[in-house]
């Protein structure tokens, strides 16, 4: 009884943590290039919508691919405005986040005649399969960021702009590809969310893209740290889901939904407190 309880909590944690970790690693790519993309939330949303819209006819594979592409396109747009045209990278990311729900609603209205829930039973997949896709994507991203020459150059482009230029690394190209990676991974994460319920619903990402950004900072800007932070935040989501089922029908059940946000804020501040003390000592 106890063991099955722990096992199911563990599985629920993984299911919540995996999309967070993937999006957060995408965010980490841009943070490593010193050009943090805050458009993850928007990219997850367009990824979820696009996977349901395309996947309804093209199936799971097509859905996931189109979700990835849509997220990548959105973040690339923001990245291009920031890097190519000199916009503030935060403002461009924010514009992407503001654009996402609007454009999804407009396209949904024009193509499907609804701005509400878009059912796509064709992309519905089991938890195991979705987890497998996410974990493979996470491993690929970790290899790219931590082990590949590309990842090294990305960090070089971020940390030492002039040195990197002298070494023949085009900083802007690397920063732009970091935005592409961030959008693609957030888009795939969103597509997996849609695939989990076999539908797109407005607002279904519920701030996960922002929480992924918290994971970037909580994880001290390292792949392993970001994954650990995502597992912690995923546990919060899992606990809140379980508590919601437990109290369903009770008068305060809705309040449980606030738990992940409040707890994430606490974790973020508490981590900052520790970090601040450490910096004070040295």
């Amino acid at each position, binding site marked *: 009884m106890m063991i099955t309880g722990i096992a199911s909590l563990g599985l629920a944690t993984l299911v919540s943590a995996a999309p967070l970790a993937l999006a957060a690693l995408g965010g980490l790519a841009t943070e490593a290039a010193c050009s943090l993309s805050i458009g993850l939330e928007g990219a997850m949303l367009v990824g979820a919508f696009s996977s349901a819209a395309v996947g309804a006819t093209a199936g799971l594979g097509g859905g996931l691919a189109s979700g990835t592409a849509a997220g990548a396109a959105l973040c690339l747009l923001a990245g291009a405005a920031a890097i190519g045209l000199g916009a503030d990278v935060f403002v461009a990311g924010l514009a992407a986040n503001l654009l996402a*729900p*609007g454009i999804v609603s407009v396209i949904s209205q024009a193509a499907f005649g609804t*701005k509400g829930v878009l059912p796509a039973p064709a992309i519905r997949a089991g938890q195991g399969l979705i987890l497998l896709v996410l974990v493979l994507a996470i491993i690929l991203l970790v290899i790219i960021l931590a082990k590949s020459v590309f990842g090294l150059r990305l960090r070089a482009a971020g940390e030492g702009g002039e040195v990197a230029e002298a070494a023949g690394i085009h900083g802007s190209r690397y920063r732009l590809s970091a935005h592409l990676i961030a959008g693609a991974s957030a888009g795939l994460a969103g597509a997996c969310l849609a695939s989990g319920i076999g539908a797109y619903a407005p607002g279904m990402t519920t701030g996960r893209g922002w929480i992924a950004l918290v994971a970037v900072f909580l994880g001290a800007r390292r792949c392993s740290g970001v994954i650990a932070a995502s597992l912690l935040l995923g546990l919060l989501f899992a606990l809140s889901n379980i508590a919601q089922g437990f109290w369903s029908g009770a008068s305060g059940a*809705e309040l449980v939904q606030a738990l992940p946000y409040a707890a*994430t804020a606490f974790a973020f501040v508490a981590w900052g407190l520790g970090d601040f003390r450490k910096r004070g000592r040295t």
Partner: protein
Amino acid sequence: MNAPAPRAGVMAWSRVLALGAAILIAIIYAFVASSDPREAMKAFFLSPFSSDYTFFSMLEYSGPLLICALGACVAFRAGAFNLGGEGQVSVGTLAAALAAGISSRLGLDPGLGIAFSILTAAAAGAFLAYLSAIAELKTGAQVMLTSFLVSQTALIVVDWAVGGPLREEGSNLLGMAPIDSVYRLPLLAPPSPLSLGFPLALALAALTILFTKGSRQGMEIRLLGKNPSFAWAVGISPKLGAAAMVLSGAMGGMAGSLLVLGQAGRAVKGMTGGVGWNGLAVALISGTDGLGAVPAALFFAWLDSGSKQASILSDLSPDASSVLVAIALFLITARRRGRR
């Protein structure tokens, strides 16, 4: 990278150009998406002016929007990215409704009661922003993320309270009991929803501009946002940035009180409806100097009411306005090369 900043006039023109481009995109969108583009375009651009009612509704909506935008401007000026506008508005609605209830129980003078509601709402929004401001000051946790997280939490709690324990008994509506009509803002052109909230918002805009442009603290806040290390060197405390954040939250709360004390006359579940995020967009489009926020808020209110009308009268989407504004935002920010 140190290109000389373009003259203010040039910047203003580039903003107008970007908004013009957004309108052009709206026209193309109407042609592509609508089966009757002529009718759709007429509904989109002209319907807000078609009657007193629709025109005054548009003005009424622009009030809270303008206040949210001004709040966002103040925070941006100080270099604080306040993404919690939506939650700050939401606690403002709850606080204003509760305060109005207290006023009628105490039998306060109507003017005093309204002021009490607005100030309580401002205090509630300020408190929410204070949490993020103090967290950044003490621990370095980015305001951008904590303000969003705190705001999400507040939205859920307020929606629960308004639709749950505080809900009016026996009502079909998920909301609190209507507040006593004497404690609402007077309507200026009944039966339209235009209330005293709109002139109040304009007055607040004038005050904000005077503060940021004319006062010493306003200048120090701007300096803090532009160059934090220089500001530190000349002895400007980072606490001033926290104060700007709190002020920003107070404005969000005030915007919430206008929503409650205006036409609605009560706090309803989910009544913020994105006004905090839209205010943020308006602030960024207007260039965060406060002055531009007035025309930008009116412009947004026009697009918003136009797209809502067009969705009723034709087959366009009611959310077209937010797409147009985001596009305008891309165009505007992309023109700010070398200028932060």
